[in-house]
Every structure is written in structure tokens, then in C-alpha cells.
């Protein structure tokens, strides 16, 4: 247990900057937005539009979902950066032998890396979501729209779930890329998938579209499911969780992790 804790701790120490950068970016953007809101509030005409343009619990839930959607985009950039370097960065930094020559199970090492590189950002997003939900509820209270912290938190939770699904599918894929490619894993992985998609399209064209091959990108994205953007006004758990495809996504994530670990294990032997 002590070993697992040490692995988590050391991964956090290595990735500290990439965890906190999105938080500082969001804090910075929020401060700028708040300044704009305060300026608008001081203006008697625009304050009518800003603070009395509709309200209620639904709008709070939808608003929080939209805010989480925006915050997720910032976090997603850092998810790409960290997950694509999960299993190859130590090789690049020339320190993989140090970690490899410790009496630690390889599956434990990759599991901790997988969790810290793919999912750890989501905890910060959740924390930010809760803070935003509380602040927004209080702002709404002062704007005489009622006090609905539960709805705000629910909206934040739905937005967080959507990010978690995206991280699960795409983050796991990038984690696999990091085991295959020694550098620029994200770009090389995308290029590989693009070539695969092109080859499939070519085969279909050669056979005059009498055979059907699955779309690579569309199938990967379908595992994330519904983004809930088109029907944001009625967004709820059922829409965000989607259908059976989330189970396929879970299976895909497990497959990516397992394949990445086996490749990493082979690469360890290969470089000995």
C-alpha cells in the first residue's frame, strides 16, 4: 500500500504544473469575466439584461452545464498533453531505468500512471465545478432569482460526467499512443488513425461501395455519446450517460490500458 501511495505521490510531483495550469487559466478568465460583469452591473441598462433575463432552477442547471463544458475544454488540452506522454516521457528524460529498477510491480506502475495522467485532471474540474456552482447559486440569490444550489451542483456534476466520459475514451486512446510512440504520440497516433480511415475509404471506393468498413473517428467519438449541447435546455443524467455505448467505451478504455501495459512491458525488455 505504501508503494502505491508513493507512486501516486511521485506522479503528482512530476505532473504538478500540468495539473495546476488549467486551474490558473480558468481563475484568470473568471477574474476577467467577473470584472466585465461588475462593469455591466454598474450600467443600469445592461444590468437589466444580465440579472433579470430569466432564471429559475432549470436555467441554473443549464448554465452550470454550459460553464462546465467551457472549463472542460481548457482541461482537455492538458489531458492531451499529459496522457500522450504517460508511458514515454521518462524514456525521453533518460530516467526510465531509475523507475524500472525498483521493486514495484509493472502493472501497479502503469495503473497509477493511467489514473494520474488520464483521470486526475477531472478531480480538479469537479472541485472547480462545485466552487462555481456555489458562487453562481449565491449570485442568483442576490439577483432575486431564488436559491437553488442543488440544481447548480447537479448541472456541474452532469458537465463533469461528460468530461469524464471524454477522458475515459480519448485519454485512454492517447495513453495507448504513449506506449506505442516514443515522442509526439498524440500527433503520430492521430496520423495513424487518419491513414487507417483513408485506407478504409479507399477500399470501399475500390469495391464501388459494395462493402462497408467502419469509420474510425466516428466510431471512437460515438463511444463518448451525446454531448447534450443540442438539447441543453433539457439536459439530464439520462442524456449525458447515454446508451449502451458507454459500456463499449468502458471496454475500450480497459482494452487500451491493457494493450498499453503489454507494449510498455515489451518495450522494457526490448531496451534492456
Amino acid at each position, binding site marked *: 500500500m*505504501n508503494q502505491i501511495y508513493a507512486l501516486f*505521490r511521485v506522479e503528482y*510531483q512530476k505532473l504538478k504544473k500540468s495539473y495546476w495550469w488549467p486551474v490558473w487559466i480558468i481563475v484568470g478568465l473568471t477574474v476577467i469575466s467577473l470584472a466585465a460583469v461588475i462593469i455591466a452591473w454598474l450600467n443600469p441598462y445592461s444590468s437589466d439584461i444580465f440579472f433579470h433575463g430569466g432564471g429559475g432552477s432549470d436555467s441554473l442547471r443549464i448554465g452550470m452545464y454550459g460553464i462546465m463544458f467551457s472549463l472542460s475544454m481548457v482541461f482537455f488540452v492538458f489531458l492531451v498533453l499529459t496522457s500522450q506522454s504517460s508511458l514515454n516521457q521518462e524514456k525521453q528524460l533518460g*530516467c526510465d531505468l531509475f523507475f524500472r*529498477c525498483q521493486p514495484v510491480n509493472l502493472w501497479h506502475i502503469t495503473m497509477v500512471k493511467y489514473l494520474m495522467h488520464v483521470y486526475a485532471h477531472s478531480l480538479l474540474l469537479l472541485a472547480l465545478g462545485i466552487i462555481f456552482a456555489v458562487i453562481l447559486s449565491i449570485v442568483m440569490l442576490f439577483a432575486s432569482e431564488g436559491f437553488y444550489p442543488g440544481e447548480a451542483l447537479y448541472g456541474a456534476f452532469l458537465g463533469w460526467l461528460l468530461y469524464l466520459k471524454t477522458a475515459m475514451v480519448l485519454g485512454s486512446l492517447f495513453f495507448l499512443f504513449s506506449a506505442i510512440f516514443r515522442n509526439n504520440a498524440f500527433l503520430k497516433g492521430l496520423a495513424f488513425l487518419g491513414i487507417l480511415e483513408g485506407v478504409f475509404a479507399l477500399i470501399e471506393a475500390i469495391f464501388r461501395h459494395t462493402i462497408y468498413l467502419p469509420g474510425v473517428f466516428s466510431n471512437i467519438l460515438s463511444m463518448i455519446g451525446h454531448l447534450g449541447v443540442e438539447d441543453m435546455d433539457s439536459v439530464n443524467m439520462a442524456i449525458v450517460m447515454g446508451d449502451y455505448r458507454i459500456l463499449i467505451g468502458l471496454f475500450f478504455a480497459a482494452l487500451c490500458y491493457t494493450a498499453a501495459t503489454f507494449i510498455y512491458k515489451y518495450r522494457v525488455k526490448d531496451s534492456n
Partner: protein
Amino acid sequence: MFGKPAEAWKHKLYERVAFIPDVSGLDPRLTVRQTIDFSAAVNPAWNAEKAERLFAKSDLPCDRKVSTLSKGMKTKLYLLLTLSKDVDILLLDEPTLGLDIVFRKEFYDLLLGEFFDESKTVIISTHQVAEVENILQDVIFLDEGKVLLSKPVQELKDQWHIVEVPKDRQNELADLSPKAMSHSLGKVRGLIKGHEKLPGAKIFVPSVSDIFVAIVNQ
């Protein structure tokens, strides 16, 4: 290894074997303290008391990032981390590569002072044979992955000797079929296997690297 094939031990092997690679590859993103804490937490063979003593004696700055340390300091940190573990075998792969002479001396002094006792084994893989020659008990010569020789150093040195004669007696020396010859300041030296001698010649004990070169060239 320890009664089982090395593969069968998997990661547990590193509870009994420690390794220092040719490049002091510590993670540059961590501080010295974080690196020590990590090693202490994942190694069941970590000797906290010994580690505390070793690091207290050293001049390593615990709050600095590894990336800011000099190559010598990084190697020292790696060595101290390794010496803080109670393992049976220490494997060193070109441990002093790129280090200046002061650090090299300190490295081997620390190694012999802190790690070595009758129950432990140090395996050093190196091209810098001269600097470790005095601490070796056994040698294995490898050439292109093949074992050319495996012997105790003393036995090896008893088998070989260097014969030195003036230049005008070069032919006499050549009759002994030396494995290698060298010329210097009016003298000729030949590396001879066996106990053949020339009257009036000076005899020297060869270095391990002299013998290695002779064997590889055979």
C-alpha cells in the same frame, strides 16, 4: 540468481539487487528530497538509519531540483540512494563515465566504505579497468557479447608477466612469442603468458587492461 532464473523474480529481484546505470538518469522534475522519499517508500530493503547518516554527511542540497545538479552530484545522489538499500548484489554499469577525477575517487571510496563486506557482491561493468583494478577479485572479459575469460584476478596475474629488455635484445624477446609488444626509451616490453624468462630481463606484473587487450587481439 539466488536459486531461481532471474526472469522468475520479476520486480522482486530489485529487493536484492541494485543497479547504477552509465548515465545518472534520475528524474529532473523531482527535487533531491522527493527522489529520496520515493526510493525510501518503494524499497523494502531501504535502511533509513544508514540513509540518514549518508545524506547528512553529503553536501547534496535536498530542496534543489535534480535538473539543477551537476553530473557529479547526480551520480553521487544515485550512489547514495543505492547504498541506502540493504541489497546483496550491486550492479554498476560504467558508473563513473564523464565524472572528473575527484568525483571518481569519492565514488569508489564511498562504495567500498559503505557497501562492501564479505557477504555482498559488487559487479562493475567498465571500460575504465585501470581505476577499478585494485578493488577487483574476479574478472570476466567480454568481447562482442562473448565471454573470453572468467578468472580470479590474482590467478590471472600469476599466469601473465611483462618482460622488459634493451632494444638490442628484441629478437630474444620475440622468441618467447609475446602476446603484445611495446617500445619505450631504448627498451622493449613483451607480455608473456606462462613462466618463461630471459636472463637479465626485468619482470613486471601486467595490468588487467594489458591482459585484456592481449586476449582480445588473439
